[in-house]
């Protein structure tokens, strides 16, 4: 478990955050620039000392104001900086082994071969950092951090400086990290797709405070997140059970309905968590007919909130699960949608949610 409580001030900026994470987990730390994300990472790594608070990973306390302040070099926290920070005078292999040689002899969770394979570094070992692409540099920085045998991994916007093609290249590696590691990862990002694909928990920072935390569904409707990521963020996490699967298409029982979804590998009777975005759900006031893919759930509106001037976000209880759908204000009025209206939901798409238990 990672437990963090921090207070510090830097000039006019004050940071006061607290969050707890069960491991294994990928916590996405999101917030506008200047909201305290990197300051939080620096404090976790021991690169700056908070004025007050406590930081503990598992049962070791790394910082306790006035009593304990383990120096950064002994914290065993892997930090992948936004600018990679590879040592230019060392080869890729030299970079990778820098932390490994300095790790305590007892801790050998990661070995060069395994990490090189996990991150696809085999062919790069003999190269120098200036001969690498941005994505390769990031992967080496991640490998270097892992080989220092950390008990916590910090990633500061690992995809931020990369072009879309490089991002797509790196994301699968990050997914493998998430699925393969037994240590918590704190991941700073303000890219929605990264958060959707990687995070199991979200901590939303605004002006140095935790505005919301929990699973993606719980945080996704927070006004501060919408402000940050736009209305695209709204989503829910729902539980379902796979009824059957073939050809990559799985039939999943959700509430009292059934959805056909592409989920990759799925086993019958498998319990899955689904991430359903509001923008992927179409709301209908009548029962839709003649759909090619009858992904329809029926339910009643439980809440109808103005999302923007022209859009409403409808929360619908469909046989015990709550989904979100976006409706234009104009259509909502024309269809006389109110709380209690009976509606049909066409679920266009949903993805498997990597996160822990739904809140």
């Amino acid at each position, binding site marked *: 478990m990672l437990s963090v409580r921090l207070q510090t001030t830097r000039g006019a900026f004050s940071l006061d955050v607290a969050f707890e994470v069960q491991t294994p987990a990928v916590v996405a730390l999101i917030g506008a620039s200047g909201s305290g994300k990197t300051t939080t990472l620096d404090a976790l790594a021991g*690169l700056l000392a908070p004025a007050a608070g406590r930081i503990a990973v598992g049962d070791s306390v790394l910082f306790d104001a006035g009593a304990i302040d383990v*120096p950064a070099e002994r914290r065993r926290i892997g930090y992948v900086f936004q600018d990679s920070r590879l040592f230019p005078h060392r080869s890729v292999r030299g970079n990778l082994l820098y932390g490994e040689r300095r790790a305590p002899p007892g801790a050998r969770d990661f070995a060069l071969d395994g990490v090189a394979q996990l991150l696809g570094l085999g062919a790069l070992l003999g190269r120098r950092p200036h001969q690498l692409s941005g994505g390769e540099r990031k992967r080496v920085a991640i490998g270097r951090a892992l080989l220092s045998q950390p008990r916590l991994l910090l990633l500061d916007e690992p995809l931020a400086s990369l072009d879309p093609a490089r991002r797509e290249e790196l994301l699968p590696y990050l997914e493998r990290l998430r699925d393969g590691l037994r240590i918590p990862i704190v991941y700073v990002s303000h890219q929605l797709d990264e958060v959707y694909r990687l995070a199991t928990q979200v901590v939303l920072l605004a002006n140095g405070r935790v505005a919301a935390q929990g699973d993606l569904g719980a945080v996704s409707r927070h006004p501060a997140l919408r402000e940050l990521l736009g209305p695209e963020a709204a989503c829910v996490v729902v539980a379902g059970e796979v009824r059957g699967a073939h050809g990559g298409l799985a039939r999943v029982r959700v509430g009292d309905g059934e959805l056909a979804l592409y989920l990759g590998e799925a086993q019958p009777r498998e319990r899955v968590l689904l991430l359903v975005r509001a923008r992927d759900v179409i709301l209908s006031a009548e029962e839709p007919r003649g759909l090619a893919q009858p992904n329809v759930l029926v339910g009643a509106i439980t809440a109808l909130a103005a999302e923007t001037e022209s859009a409403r976000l409808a929360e619908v209880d469909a046989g015990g699960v709550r989904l979100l759908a976006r409706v234009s204000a104009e259509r909502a009025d024309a269809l006389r949608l109110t709380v209690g209206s009976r509606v049909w939901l066409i679920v266009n798409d949903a993805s498997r949610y990597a996160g822990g238990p739904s809140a």
Partner: protein
Amino acid sequence: MPLLGAAERDALLLSLSVALRSVAVSLPLAIAAAWLLTRRRFIGRTLLDALIHLPLVLPPVVIGYALLLLFGTRGPIGGWLDRELGVQLIFTRAGAALATGVMSFPLIVRAVRLSLEGVDRGLEQAARTLGAGPLDRFATITLPLIAPGILAGAITAFAAGLGEFGAVITFASNIPGETRTLPLALYSALQTPGGDALAARLAALSFALGLAGLLASEVLARLMQRRLGRA
């Protein structure tokens, strides 16, 4: 006739030995001074900075005189060295090296400082999160990164040290085979009737050495930069 006569050979070897010793002793101190000036904020930092750079602006004779006062057998440091260790610097080759070292000290400090200011502190932070303590970080990250600057500074100081005149002649005098380095031999030759040819040969030698030193410094620095992938 051999290319170099005995006088030139003596002066050349002596100059090389004096310059080499001066650089060997002042290099670590200059790195430490550059580090203090770049990385630490302390009271008197500006004064220390000025003191280190004084040899660049003062007449070298003044430096030689100051060394006489400090390191002469009656001076506070020289007296102690003489009494406790039986070491005399005045009128010796070691003294010539000391005077040369003081004069070229700011050259090394400047070069090292420039490189230190160019070091990305983020790399040291990264090393820190990877488990490297302060000395470890300095030895494995900072030092290799500033190596081009150290090398350039050392070579420039060495080349300049070959030709140090005023401070050496004031502090260590002009003793053949002991403190008569190239420029002192050149000066002596000019003072001697019929010494013109010797003086010309010594001058040419100094010119060649200086040029070689500066070129070597430039080439080596470029090679090292390339290794760091910055070229």
